[in-house]
């Protein structure tokens, strides 16, 4: 089965610019997650979707970050405006549903804000 797809793989922007990341989960997976992984740290959950509804966005900096999952499949994560501290790898993951299931991760997008 195809894995979680993400694009772009790398992005370099200047601070105050905006950026968007795209994720296509494994077919049939109802739950989708966006994580932020800063260098030297473990992934931190930003937002969790169940189908097209938000389950948890308690750690999403809502003044600058937004995410949507229209039609319950693909998802986009946007940062506007970006700050230097947003430099990180943004990982998308999906699981069959929100039970005790393994999360499958995509290759991630490495964002550098200069």
């Amino acid at each position: 089965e195809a894995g979680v797809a993400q694009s772009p793989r790398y992005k370099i922007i200047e601070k105050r610019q905006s950026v968007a990341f795209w994720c296509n989960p494994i077919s049939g997976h109802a739950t989708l997650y966006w994580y932020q992984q800063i260098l030297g740290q473990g992934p931190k959950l930003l937002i969790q979707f169940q189908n097209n509804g938000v389950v948890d966005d308690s750690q999403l900096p809502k003044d600058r970050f937004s995410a949507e999952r229209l039609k319950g499949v693909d998802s986009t994560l946007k940062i506007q405006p970006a700050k230097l501290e947003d430099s990180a790898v943004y990982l998308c993951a999906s699981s069959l549903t929100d039970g005790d299931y393994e999360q499958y991760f995509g290759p991630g997008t490495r964002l550098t804000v200069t």
Partner: protein
Amino acid sequence: EDKVVQSPLSLVVHEGDTVTLNCSYEVTNFRSLLWYKQEKKAPTFLFMLTSSGIEKKSGRLSSILDKKELSSILNITATQTGDSAIYLCAGRIQGAQKLVFGQGTRLTINP
């Protein structure tokens, strides 16, 4: 605040050695603990542990959960250079099902 702490942060050993990686957790409404291996970017799943004292094994890797001590260990025997990676553990919170990750252990296997 939910927290997962891994130790050591970094470990360098020679090929053939056995290593033990540690993970301790303080997670409200704990449901399960997961181990992942991260080589390039995408973490890949290793184990999910829900019951205390039951060892999960896959080849040279094994893991066990101790709910009394709020901890887990990951053992790798007869290490190979391909085992070099960052090993992440995560606690899953019941209800929300979210994962709280530790900072990872960077394991380097020298030939």
